């Protein structure tokens, strides 16, 4: 196994450009799971990002909150302004693993790990986050809701690093994050939901309901058009078009569909004037 160290972002980019098979390492909370047993992973080359100090801080400007490429969940939980303006980020961060994981896990790592059950991605997506990628060939910005192209497939080339996540500042009239897991902490989501509403419109994001985390256009349209919904069952047709849950080691498709319908209905009924 080889590890290449970098102190500055350009250095890291150079290393990635030089070896298309090299894997960047940030907090390690996904990569190192069962590390000793995963012998195949020991025969690869890694690029250590942990000293890229420029990527650690989060920044506020008039128009955006920008999370750094190495900003952790704990960084966000600690930031009072985020708690006020982007409460879903804090809510999601608090439900990632437990404090030991929150202290090391990064939002960017969560994005590029591309788990369909990720906790950070749904709320970022519901806030219209934009992924900022750097490489030796320049900068590219991809809206997070267009970032995933298939199960564990994304619009990131091997020579690119996520250096920032840009989140537009805007007033939200509605925002909710729900994570349904098998216990209250240290749980992988069986169903994840992030829903927001602003002048930019409704955003409904589902996790663990499809090969990728995704927006739910039929549900968003239903909300935009103020369709009258009488009970959770009325949401099922839109849900069925938007997501495709499966039976897996964690849960069943039937359970996931029902829960998504009920939780969405329950969370939205007051705002939408449903019974």
């Amino acid at each position, binding site marked *: 196994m080889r590890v290449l160290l970098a102190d500055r972002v350009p250095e890291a980019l150079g290393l990635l450009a030089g070896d298309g098979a090299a894997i960047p390492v940030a907090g390690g909370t996904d990569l190192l*799971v*069962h590390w*000793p*047993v995963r*012998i195949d992973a*020991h025969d690869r080359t890694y690029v250590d990002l942990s000293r890229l100090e420029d990527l650690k801080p989060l920044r506020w400007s008039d128009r955006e909150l920008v999370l750094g490429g190495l900003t952790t969940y704990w960084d966000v939980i600690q930031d009072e302004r985020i708690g006020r303006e982007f409460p879903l980020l804090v809510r999601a961060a608090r439900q990632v693993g*437990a404090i030991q994981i929150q202290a090391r896990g990064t939002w960017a790592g969560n994005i590029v790990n591309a788990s369909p059950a990720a906790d950070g991605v749904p709320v970022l997506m519901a806030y219209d986050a934009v992924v900022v990628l750097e490489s030796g060939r320049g900068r590219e910005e991809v809206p997070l809701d267009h970032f995933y192209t298939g199960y564990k497939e994304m619009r990131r080339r091997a020579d690119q690093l996520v250096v920032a996540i840009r989140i537009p500042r805007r007033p939200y009239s509605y925002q909710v994050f729900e994570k*349904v897991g*098998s*216990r*209250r*902490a*240290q*749980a*992988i989501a*069986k*169903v994840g939901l992030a829903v927001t509403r602003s002048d930019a419109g409704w955003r409904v994001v589902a996790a663990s309901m499809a090969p990728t985390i995704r927006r739910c256009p039929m549900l968003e349209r239903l909300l935009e058009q103020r369709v009258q919904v009488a009970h959770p069952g009325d949401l099922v047709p839109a849900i069925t078009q938007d997501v495709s849950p499966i039976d897996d*080691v*964690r*849960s*069943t498709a*039937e*359970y996931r569909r*029902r*829960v998504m319908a*009920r*939780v969405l209905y*329950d969370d939205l009924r007051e705002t939408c004037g449903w019974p």
Partner: protein
Amino acid sequence: MQRREGLAKLTGRERYVDDLPLEGALWGMTVRSPAPRGRVTAVRFRPDVNWSEIVVVDYRDVPAANEILLIERDQPVLAAAYVRHVHEAVLLVAHPSREMARRAARAVDVVVAPEPPALDFRAPPRPEQIQFGRDNVLKRLQIAKGDVEQALARAPVVVEGVYETGAQEHVYLETQGMIAWLENDVLVVKGSMQCPYYVLNALQHALGRDERRVRVIQTPTGGGFGGKEEYPSTIALHAALLALKAGRPVKMVYDRPEDMASTTKRHPSLVRHRTALTTDGRLLAQDIEVVLDGGAYVTLSPVVLSRGIIHAAGPYACDNVRIVGRAMFTNAVPFGAFRGFGAPQTLFALERHMDVIARALGLDPVELRRRNLLRDGQSTATGQVIRDGTDRIAVLERALALSGYREKQHSHAAFNAAQRSQRRGIGLATFYHGAGFTGGGEVHLNSRLQVAGLPDGRVEVLSANIEMGQGTLTVFTQIVADRLGLAPEEVVIGEPDTARVPNSGPTVASRTTMVVGRLIERAADDLRHRVGLDDRARGAAVKDAIMRWHREHRGEPLLGEAVYERPPGIAWDEERYQGDAYAAFAWAAYVAEVEVDLRTCTTRVIDFVAVQEVGKVINPTLARGQVQGGVVQGLGWALMEECKVENGAMINNQLTNYIIPTSDDVPPIRVAFVENLYPHGAQGAKGLGELPIDGPAPAILNAVAAATGADPRAIPLTAERLMEIVERTH
């Protein structure tokens, strides 16, 4: 007295087997069967590693008998021509580097010609699946009292029910681990275990070494719960075989996924009840069928079945009882000892069934218990007359009072009517647990123990019983100190080393305080007598007499001894399975309050009260900790711990997908004890360790039923299952 070794554990200074430095040791790894059943047609070594560097052991290296000595001798140390379950050990490899040992294990292909496995213990096996006896029944047992058929025929009311429990993985935080090495001609095996003499006997039998050439030492053990009762014999044998072949020390420590997938679990069960009652809820007959999944080898299934059926009719008076039990062979990874040992399974079924009966009869579940709980003078299913003087109704009443049972029922009604999606409910379970080995078991064990007087006047307890968190070191110290009037610092608890300590029996069956503790008292008395003192001598008088004795007998050991004596008036008929099954029972009433979210059907336990009568509470902090830990372990089994199985093996064998409770998943567990001194237990104590895991599952499911109107009959009651049940109900 505070936990004796507490500070060492809190500061990280306590050293477990994987913490011990080992010069020149090799790491051992196990190669396992990929198939649930079949003939091993080839074992291929791929060139991924340099095999000349690797020590390899297979069944041919077992010197005497390729058998893991337990109740039967059906389980091989290493599979020879045939495999009977996925993950069965076939080959062992060792190398100084742990990574290389892993690579070597990975580089072996075990080729199996598959045969049809038996994977469903509930279904009668097809002819091609028969692998044990004529019908794949590992063990049959029956209890009969009165005339069940007649009582059922005449009964005004009969209520039936079928209940199921799933496997449970122990998740001791310290995985299985063992080191083995040769010291001169003595094979020394050291590691995490509950029963040093079980390991010793297994080593002697398979390796053909007599007692002088094998030595077993228990290291501080990071949790057992029964998972380190019999399994350590297997890993000890494996480490020993590698050490003997390599001529170097060998260490084997299982990774968590390997531990979860390939070691024993709690027996899954299916229990059928047919119960006859009067219209006002008095039990007339209990007809019970208990079926356990034993897995691919006998291990301890006969004893688990035994304890399971003995507890199956519960702490109730009933004149007509029939309990028929069988443990089934399947090609699953063998099941084994787990806290409660059959009783949690059958008590779950019974106590859930009691609430099902209550609902069918329109009776209050509390009243149903009150009408049927054993009073002194009444007898259990095996005909054991209970006359211990415990007011079992008072135990129930105390639990009701502490939990605010009635008030909560009222407030829940209002809450449930007002809430859209949250539902609250409260449920109870009344139950019992027999302490010590069943029937003649303790006589059979014939436990021996010594309390030595040391030259400096201190005393040392020499016993084979171990500390795994339940408080052995502290309670043993207290018992000796109290008996002889010594300070705790003047009492030494000898390391459980078979070269130094007699066989005081295994650390299982809730026997350590009650049975072994009593041996300590008697051995301490014997020690006093040997230095010419009577039973009233205490403190400095004892110390001085010991020191004087040593001055007069230089170089000689001074040992007070005790051998197990069955309490008077205990009679058990092993043939007819009748009589006094246990010398003593502990009695309990648990109440669980839950909140169910109907949107997700997740159940949260929001309050839990555990009341028990255990004779005497010798150490309140330790006793409370046992109850709280057992309750949370039972809560996990009831609601979230599911073994997902493929081909008889666990596939969710990681802590990320085998879900045990975190601190945020459980409420404070409120504990109360009632005391009623048991004359034959140390200081009046009865067993406590297993009782707490018998009650939570039925109490919780009864609460869920109260909250939702649903009727769950199986655990784990995951959210997915509850949703299906609720949907069916509405």
